[in-house]
């Protein structure tokens, strides 16, 4: 059965800290891995990763994929209170159906 597992489930840090969020997967016919940020509304797209070892970066956020070990990490440096959210990881299957398998998310709280 396909699955995507995120860790930790929740995390509390102080502003300025660096955090690393983990996403491991067991999915047949992998196509890509995606990261989303969800505050009290719909998820917003952060990154899509398809190749191992190539870092995607946007401001203080960065992510990398390891297709051999079947995991990805999302790093956030110099955290701010606005980074508080649930971070979701999803894997798209390389089938004709374009289905996505989501993890349950990591809840991050950044304290001022």
């Amino acid at each position, binding site marked *: 059965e396909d699955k995507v597992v995120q860790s930790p489930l929740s995390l509390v840090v102080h502003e300025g800290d660096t955090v690393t969020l983990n996403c491991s997967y067991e999915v047949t016919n992998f196509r890509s891995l995606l990261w989303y940020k969800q505050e009290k509304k*719909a*998820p917003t*797209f952060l990154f899509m990763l398809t190749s191992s070892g190539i870092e995607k970066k946007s401001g203080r956020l960065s992510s990398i994929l390891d297709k051999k070990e079947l995991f990805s990490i999302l790093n956030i440096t110099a955290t701010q209170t606005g980074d508080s959210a649930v971070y979701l990881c999803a894997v798209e299957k390389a089938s*004709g159906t374009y*289905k996505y398998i*989501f993890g349950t998310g990591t809840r991050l709280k950044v304290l001022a």
Partner: protein
Amino acid sequence: SQTIHQWPATLVQPVGSPLSLECTVEGTSNPNLYWYRQAAGRGLQLLFYSVGIGQISSEVPQNLSASRPQDRQFILSSKKLLLSDSGFYLCAWRAGGAQYFGPGTRLLVL
């Protein structure tokens, strides 16, 4: 640019009442469309997806149904709501390999 609309934003319905949620996409043609449900504090559950007009695939057996009457319109329906149907309903579309979400509808069934 492409945008996705959902309405209503919030809905309170009694048990046993019908449901119709609508999703429309602008700025693209023949998109892959998806309906997800997110229960409070839980992950995203894929309910239905569609690769074209009239083509619906169901992921989870339940009392919900979906229809795609037009290329850029995706509708989620129920004849009789259950308490367990409460949740955050999200419509999404696929573009460039990534998936983008509409603003969602919060449904509370009482």
